[in-house]
């Protein structure tokens, strides 16, 4: 992917701002803000790793938006549903690998059902109508998952090591779990990128994304493609569900991480897979750094909105996000 010079410039200045602003804040308000380089890097790395986990959710959005132009609000609900199903199956005594396989099957069935019952009936409707329909799916899945498996907080333990460890001269504390999550996300992105670039189905997906009608006219089956995309998004949701679920416990609030993924999405651009990753890194790191070094000056808890305002600032300079396709408008 060729990087434009302005993109590089924006990225570099973001990074610079992330270092300079806390530094200045600490000098200006030494009583409120504590600053030391090892501490700063610990916060930064923690933020970057958290950002990777946001990217995991954002990925699902990007996949569906790319292939069908649908802004799929239900991605968060899919994460919750996948995690609930997995935990529910494990609680019923299935071994973990079998439960994962069964959950994958469930997500694929879900994708096919969504395609058959919802998307197919709403072909050619305006984007906002499709967006609304996915909110309907969100409600349905939230209710359905909890009806089936109950709404208590459940623990998901797949034996992923979760030990804080010191790195770099015993100065920076990082959790093993976060590293593994980042690794998983990296592998997932690579696999998806290869899938999109190298396989036959991937080419068909990109064709559909470019132009529905042209894709149909060269004989690409639109309906199958949509079912495949939703299945892949379901798998991504499962991975996100496993990682988030292991970290926070499987509960209703998992569905709300979709809201955290939205700023990542607009920052990176709706149509770009690398954008979702880099957007996630920027949002994750920016959010943590802001919370720790600027938050005390504003009264704390700025994590709630900081990501959105950050994304908003980026959008004013880049209306299509950092890596989104350039919006060309014609009369």
């Amino acid at each position, binding site marked *: 992917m060729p990087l434009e010079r302005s993109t590089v410039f924006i990225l570099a200045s973001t990074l610079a701002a992330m270092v300079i602003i806390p530094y200045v804040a600490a000098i200006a308000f030494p009583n409120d803000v504590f600053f030391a380089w090892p501490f700063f890097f610990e916060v930064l790395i923690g933020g970057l790793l958290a950002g990777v986990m946001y990217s995991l959710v954002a990925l699902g959005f990007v996949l569906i938006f790319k292939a069908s132009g649908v*802004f799929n609000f239900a991605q968060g609900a899919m994460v919750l549903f996948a995690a609930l199903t997995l935990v529910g199956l494990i609680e019923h005594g299935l071994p973990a690998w079998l439960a994962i396989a069964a959950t994958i099957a469930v997500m694929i069935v879900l994708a096919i059902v969504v395609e058959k*019952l*919802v998307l197919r*009936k*709403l072909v050619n*409707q*305006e*984007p*906002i*109508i499709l*967006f*609304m*329909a996915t*909110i*309907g*799916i*969100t*409600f*349905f*899945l*939230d*209710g*359905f998952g*909890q*009806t089936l498996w109950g*709404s208590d907080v459940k623990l998901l333990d797949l034996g992923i090591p979760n030990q804080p460890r010191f790195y770099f001269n015993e100065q920076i504390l990082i959790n093993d779990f976060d590293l593994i999550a980042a690794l998983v996300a990296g592998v997932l992105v690579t696999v998806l990128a290869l899938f999109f670039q190298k396989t036959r189905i991937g080419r068909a997906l990109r064709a559909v994304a470019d132009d529905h009608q042209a894709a149909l006219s060269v004989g690409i089956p639109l309906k199958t493609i949509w079912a495949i995309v939703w299945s892949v998004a379901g798998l991504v949701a499962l991975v996100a569900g496993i990682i988030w679920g292991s970290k926070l416990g499987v509960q209703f609030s998992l569905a709300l991480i979709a*809201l955290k993924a*939205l*700023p990542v*999405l*607009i920052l990176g651009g*709706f149509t770009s897979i690398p954008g979702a990753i880099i957007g996630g890194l920027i949002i994750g790191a920016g959010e943590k750094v802001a919370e720790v070094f600027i938050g005390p000056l*504003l*009264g*704390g*808890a*700025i994590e*709630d*909105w900081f990501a*959105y*305002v950050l*994304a*908003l600032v980026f*959008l*004013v300079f880049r*209306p*299509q*996000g950092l890596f989104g396709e350039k*919006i060309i*408008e*014609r*009369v």
Partner: protein
Amino acid sequence: MIYRDAGQFKTSYAADQAIFPIRQDRILLAIGLLIAFILIPSLASEYWLNTIMIPFLVFSLAALGLNILTGYAGQLSLGTGAFMACGAFAAYKLTTAFPDLNIILVFLGAGLCAAGVGIIFGIPSLRIKGFYLAVATLAAQFFLIWMFNKFPWFTNYSASGVISAPPRAIIGDVIVTGSSAVPYVKYLFVLSFVLVLTLLAKNLVRSNIGREWMAVRDMDIAAEIIGIRMLSTKLKAFAISSFYCGVAGALWAFCYTGSVEALAFDINRSFQVLFMIIIGGLGSILGSFMGAAFIVLLPIFLSNAPTMLGLSISVELISHLEFMIFGALIIFFLIVEPHGFARLWQITKEKLRLWPFPY
């Protein structure tokens, strides 16, 4: 047959431009107003007025506001809840700072405050479009709610972060706000307020401002080329929409719940109002009301249905089933009629023109 407009001639420009050009519509409207102003307050119980009619009217107003922005001007917004909160908190600050100010002026002032905030958060709409804008308005949603929560000045340093509406009268000692007000007085007050603002909105959207909005909605580049100023048109839409939402928020806090905290206006509220205008019909005044009625009544109906049917289901399960049915119904209605109840009503009217004769 029923809706036959044969024989109704318009002989003046005024008659031609009437909001309800057909006699049957005017009769229907008159009956509706009679029911709303006389029948409902005299027959409905306190429960009905407080939990169904007043929230329905308040939500209708909020939906109207969002419909101006999204349905007419085409700017998708997920910040409705925040603008409602602005109105609620502004009204509270105004009426506690100036206790003698008439409550109607307080509400209008609250609307203006919300409009100002709306303009600020509307500025990005000049660069950002579509879903990108929707997510950008979430910045308003989260930032404003955080602000109202964080700074105790907004709640006059109340320990719980909750504002309670003080009793205020419109004239003499007719108290219309707070928990001590008589339900039917509150109801009539809200009803009149909403109807006047609705009339205003209806005239606004068929004036040249409204036509500019629709031009921007249909294709903003084309609109710009024929000489519509983007800046003022879009910001007007944001300001007026936020004004309506702000007044709705103030009515919510003062006439519906009586006391309210910032979290009552969270993201779910925004989604609720968005549901209303999409189910009701984008770009339709009547649709805002129909959508509000549907979304307000459906949960009440769903939570009462099992007891009415004589089933005993645990409360938790009911709430989950509610979610499911709500979601499924939304999808169902979108599939049946993506343009909402307003379009269904239009189709019905067309059918009634001929009915019962099929020619």
